[in-house]
């Protein structure tokens, strides 16, 4: 790709950007949120048309006008926001549009489609039956299905836009190994990620974008965390993690017998103090998100007993939770966290409309002030707060999902994978915000599958396995080995029980 430019109303997303990938090369594409990475890849994948520049495949200039063109050229795109058909099964998704047919009536050959899907699943080491409905799978597995689909298309270039942001360590390692295997087979890979460690591990070259322009390039031997960050943000980030501090008011928040409909026979209890960041680690499917949803009244069949400040609080609906200052930033921002067809302003004020209204009539100027405030505080990259959330880059969407709750003075803030898809600079800003909130007496519960994050940000870490908390590690005993061991259900000597009872 040479000299690619692309503008959207009010933004120049790309300005004269170059990018190349050789056969079998793993090229990492990095940059801050909104730097234009996804846009560049969408142009290569035929989703957007460039305003200028040219694309050459095997030395031949090509116009890629739509996704089919890209596929024909052997380019497969695994999007940042997943693109699966929920109510089809795994095999159906892999072969969507290319289903094997039976002879006389052109019906879908059910036997063959499942048999054909099997080798791809095996290649990825996926142990799910190929007739599982996609809606019954976690985000991580859905992603794997998309990769299987790319494999089945015999792609020669696979674009992966933040593929690991929702995977656990084990799954990530499997994916990274797979990428290396694919590259050995001559498949080129363009790999977008905010996890710089991964890039160090697999990339043969890293291309850095900043504000829609090439900011530099590093070869394998030169790639290092600091140099990447420096190129991305134009300065070095001296203190990335904020040091955990001792907690103030022990047992401020107590959850007892939290049961989710997913694990109805397991109950979870834990305590959290004011000023504390309590992490929840575990493998995908450990029931962390489900437990949290039960806690805030989003799971009708579930139950929980909650005490705050030694008072029993009754939480039956999300409204109840919110009125007690307990807010959840959910895992899936597109379907649960945001109304993407609404503006930033409307999203930020939605949970708290009444405070922006006089006699039931919305005061848009009040809303605007608040929204602008959050946009500035969180450094959301956008021309103004009237932008539709749909048009924001992934990381900036996440900031809006967080911002709407920060605007409401949380007492207990629950974050489910809060930094998924967020760039290094913003990550450290979000950690700072979490810490500040804690120091002002907030309780923070953070579910995270990012081991680095869990190790460095949390005061204590509760590890879950199959719906139960297998142990809680305090700062001193919080090591990767301990967490992994608890996560697979083994016991660890240093681990403590989750609650005082």
């Amino acid at each position, binding site marked *: 790709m040479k000299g690619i430019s692309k503008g959207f*109303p009010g933004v120049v997303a790309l300005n004269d950007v170059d990018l190349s990938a050789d056969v079998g090369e793993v090229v990492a594409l990095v940059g801050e949120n909104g730097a234009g990475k996804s846009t560049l890849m969408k142009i290569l994948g035929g989703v957007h048309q460039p305003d200028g520049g040219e694309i050459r495949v095997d030395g031949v200039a090509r116009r890629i006008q739509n996704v089919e063109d890209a596929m024909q050229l052997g380019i497969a795109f695994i999007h940042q926001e997943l693109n699966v058909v929920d109510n089809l099964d795994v095999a159906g998704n892999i072969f969507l549009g290319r289903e094997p047919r039976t002879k006389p009536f052109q019906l879908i050959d059910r036997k063959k489609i499942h048999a054909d899907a099997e080798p791809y699943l095996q290649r990825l080491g996926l142990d799910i039956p190929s007739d599982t409905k996609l809606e019954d799978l976690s985000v991580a597995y859905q992603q794997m299905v998309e990769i299987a689909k790319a494999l089945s298309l015999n792609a020669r270039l696979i674009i992966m836009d933040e593929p690991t942001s929702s995977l656990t360590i084990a799954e990530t390692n499997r994916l990274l190994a797979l990428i290396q295997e694919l590259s050995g087979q001559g498949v080129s890979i363009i790999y977008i990620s905010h996890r710089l460690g991964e890039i160090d591990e697999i990339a043969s070259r890293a291309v850095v974008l900043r504000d829609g322009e090439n900011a530099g390039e590093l070869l394998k031997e030169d790639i290092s965390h600091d140099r990447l960050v420096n190129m991305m943000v134009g300065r070095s980030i001296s203190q990335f993690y904020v040091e955990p501090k001792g907690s103030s008011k022990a047992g401020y928040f107590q959850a007892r017998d939290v049961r989710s409909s997913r694990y109805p026979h397991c109950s979870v209890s834990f305590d959290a103090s004011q000023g504390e960041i309590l992490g929840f680690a575990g493998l995908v499917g450990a029931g962390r998100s489900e437990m949290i949803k039960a806690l805030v009244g*989003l799971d009708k069949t579930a139950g929980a007993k909650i005490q705050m400040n030694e008072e029993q609080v009754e939480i039956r*609906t*999300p*409204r109840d*939770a*919110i*009125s007690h200052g307990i807010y*959840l930033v*959910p895992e899936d921002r597109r*379907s*649960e*966290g*945001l*109304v*993407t*067809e*609404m503006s930033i302003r*409307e999203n930020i004020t*939605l*949970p708290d*409309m*009444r405070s922006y*209204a006089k006699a*039931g*009539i*919305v005061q848009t100027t009040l809303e605007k002030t608040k929204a602008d405030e959050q946009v500035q505080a969180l450094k959301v990259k956008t021309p103004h707060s009237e932008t539709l959330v749909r048009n924001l880059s992934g990381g900036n969407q996440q900031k809006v999902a967080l911002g*709407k709750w920060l605007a409401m003075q949380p007492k207990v803030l629950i974050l489910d994978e809060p930094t998924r898809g967020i760039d290094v600079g913003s990550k450290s800003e979000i950690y700072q915000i979490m810490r500040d909130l804690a120091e002002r007496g907030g309780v923070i519960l953070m579910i995270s599958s990012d081991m680095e994050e869990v190790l460095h940000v949390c005061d204590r870490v509760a590890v879950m396995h199959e719906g139960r908390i297998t142990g809680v590690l305090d700062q001193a005993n919080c090591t990767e080995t301990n967490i992994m061991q608890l996560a697979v259900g083994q016991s660890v000597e240093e681990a403590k029980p989750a609650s005082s009872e």
Partner: protein
Amino acid sequence: MKKELGIFLLLVALCAVTAILNPRFLSPTNLTNMANIIGLFGIFSIGLGLVIITGGIDLSVGSMFALAGVLLSIALREWGLPWPVAALFVILVPMGLGALHGTLVTRMRIQPFIVTLCGLLLYRGLARFIADDNTKGFGNAEGFETLRAIASGKFLGLPMPFVILIVIAVVMWLVLHRSVYGRYLFAVGRNEEATRFCGINTKLVVASSYVLAGLLTGIAGILLAFYTNSISPSTHGNFYELYAIAAAVLGGCSLRGGEGSIIGIIIGTALLQILQNLVNLLGIPSSLNFAVMGAVVLLGVLADSYLGNRSKRTS
């Protein structure tokens, strides 16, 4: 806003063409009659528009008109209820049915199309049964002249239904485009799940839109009964829900929910009614009436999606 401008221009063009081809279009009688009908249809189209904005649909409106008309005639003439009580009764019945629809849709998770399709059949049947399949009317009975005046009289030279539409439109504009509740309606239509995560009782919001639609249907039902002055239960209000859906869609509502405006719905209503008027005035065989309407709705929606896509790409 751009969306409404497009069909507004279409409306103006249509009026101009009709007026040139047949000056009778501008005659006071014709204009008054148009205003009357636009008023009537506009009121319940707004109700249906609200339901559509939440991502639902209401097919039972026409049958509710039959039921409301029959009940009104019976309440006034056979039961001899005082007119305010009768009117209230006839408004409360569709509201109650709306609440029922809303509950079935949100609590029982039955699709709105199915719930209200059953309503369409049920209420039509009920109306015919109650009326014994006889045409009901108001005849020369006395005691409700005030109601008749409110429903079919004039105010400042304008037909009452039109005046009532203006009032309702202003109120509903405030509700939909300026109030907290209106914001919730749009949010639910766009992403119910995320709205629920914001602590909003989305079931209540959805259900309430059916109740509001019922309220507007009830009001329109009274006006319609006095407009026709006789209610034959098997045909009264037939297909009216489709006029409303067409008007809403022409006016920019998306059946996927989350989109639409009061002004758009009213312009859409006016467009459809003037189109019918045009068919009459230009001597096009009235058997082609529906065909013309269908074609125009299709063209309007096509033009909209074409222009919409283009502006998305270029802007």
